[in-house]
């Protein structure tokens, strides 16, 4: 048993960083959400413990924002999947050298030119829900393409050749070999798209109208424009709950469908 724990030692510093700067803040978030709002100076009233902030979810305003966030997340994940899958197929059909070039070009706007991309989109698209969704698709798409592309590369190419040899048309090969075998990649891409779509921040911030905000934008506004940290923390907790539901919910739904089909 002792030997096993010591094997974790090399990972120690990295784990400590995640615990201190990710897990810690998340726990702190829950604590801050239980403070009462500040009266006068400060960001919250120290030493208080109450659920008053969570009552805000019961009124229509926050519930509306949460609903809008979920709608955005689902729309983003669906759009991303619909574009990423054909793009992944296209990518895997290229020669090794072209794959590399195409991959670099797909990664470039999100990873290297994030601000430049938002600047360009802002010039072209009038603010609104559609612009928000397009911007978020631009932000999430590269990751989804990589996930699907990696899945497609792992397919055994001889399976497709065998299917062709047995007389299947290229559509049949796609429908009955490629598509089913690449399903795990599609599910993962949808799941990640949903998780990132729920946390949509830059899209609605730069391209959404003020009344079309997601939870992420709303909590930023509460914290920085009104200094209401407890309420912002409460909204963040709500957002985390949604993301957790997405993370566990998508595989669960897939599992259920598989069981009912059997």
């Amino acid at each position: 048993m002792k030997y096993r724990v010591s094997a974790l030692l090399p990972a120690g510093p990295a784990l400590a960083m995640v615990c201190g700067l990710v897990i810690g803040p998340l726990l702190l978030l829950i604590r801050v959400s239980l403070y009462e709002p500040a009266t006068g100076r400060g960001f919250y009233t120290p030493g208080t413990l109450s659920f008053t902030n969570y009552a805000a979810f019961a009124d229509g305003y926050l519930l509306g924002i949460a609903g809008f966030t979920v709608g955005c997340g689902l729309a983003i994940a669906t759009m991303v999947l619909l574009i990423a899958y054909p793009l992944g197929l296209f990518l895997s059909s290229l020669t090794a050298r072209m794959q590399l070039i195409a991959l670099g070009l797909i990664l470039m706007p999100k990873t290297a030119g994030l601000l430049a991309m938002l600047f360009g989109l802002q010039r072209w698209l009038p603010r609104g829900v559609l612009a928000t969704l397009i911007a978020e698709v631009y932000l999430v798409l590269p990751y989804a393409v990589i996930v699907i592309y990696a899945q497609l590369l792992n397919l055994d190419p001889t399976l497709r050749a065998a299917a062709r040899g047995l007389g299947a048309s290229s559509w049949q090969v796609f429908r009955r070999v490629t598509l089913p075998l690449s399903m795990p990649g599609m599910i993962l891409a949808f799941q990640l798209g949903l998780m990132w779509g729920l946390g949509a921040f830059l899209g609605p911030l730069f391209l959404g109208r003020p009344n079309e905000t997601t939870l992420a934008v709303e909590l930023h506004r509460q914290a920085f424009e009104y200094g209401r940290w407890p309420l912002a923390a409460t909204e963040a907790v709500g957002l985390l709950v949604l993301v957790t539901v997405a993370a566990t919910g998508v595989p669960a739904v897939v599992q259920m469908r598989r069981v009912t089909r059997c």
Partner: protein
Amino acid sequence: MLIRKRVISVLGWGTIVCLLAPVLHTVWVSFSPDSFLTPPTTAWSFKWYVACFQDRRWMHAILQSLTVAGLAAGLAVATAAPAAWSMGNLTRTQQRFVSFLLLLPALIPPAALGIGLLPLVHVTGLWGTTLGMVLVHATIGLPIGFLIIRTCLPEQLSELETAAAGLGASQPEILRRVTLPLLAPVLFAAGIAVFVLSLNESLVSIFLATPNNETLPAVVWPQLRYSPSPLVAVASCTTAIIGTLGILIVLRILVTRGRHSCPSLTKSPPSDRLPACHEIRQVSTVP
């Protein structure tokens, strides 16, 4: 058949061009000779680039961005590498535990992380410091660094380490003469990836920036939102140029390295291929 292939290729490349178009538009606008946001057609100028590099606030932000990105990349690789290296010695459960925790920073919404970090940096005195920014950026870079190193660990690494130990090398000697030289390109690639990511990190930075430690994206975003100008386009392009160079380097390294260790990056499955002469020689000359 040929027509269909052509249609597919036009659609595929067309999508990629659509993805690139907004960035290209911004680059175009950044050469504008006046302060309008229409792309220049006849007269081009570097006026806004000069203005950006002469402005103290922009320069401070650019330098701050580069410093933070460099330090964060170093820290992320220094912590992710041992973690990725040790995965082979762990049980299944431990592996899942470590991967889950190290990938967590990429999975939770940055806005929630930002608002959670706010009280933490206030309490610990990291508020407004470069150190705080570096720690946060390194944590955000951990997942990508870990993933790259993990998937590209050379296959023969543990065998060569065992061989070196059998030949009487001490643990530090193995690390210095076998492990690090073999890992160096992968670590470099991972470092560049984290660097590029950190340069563009604009979500958590928006929450944590103060005039003292603000990185470029934190200076750009309020202006981008309320008063876009060619100057903002220039500032956005600066990170885009550095970032693109970075991506090129990463892909290049991963592909030359990845021929053997990253089958997912190359098309031909290398499993049943006989090793080439130079590879055998290469392996046998390693101490």
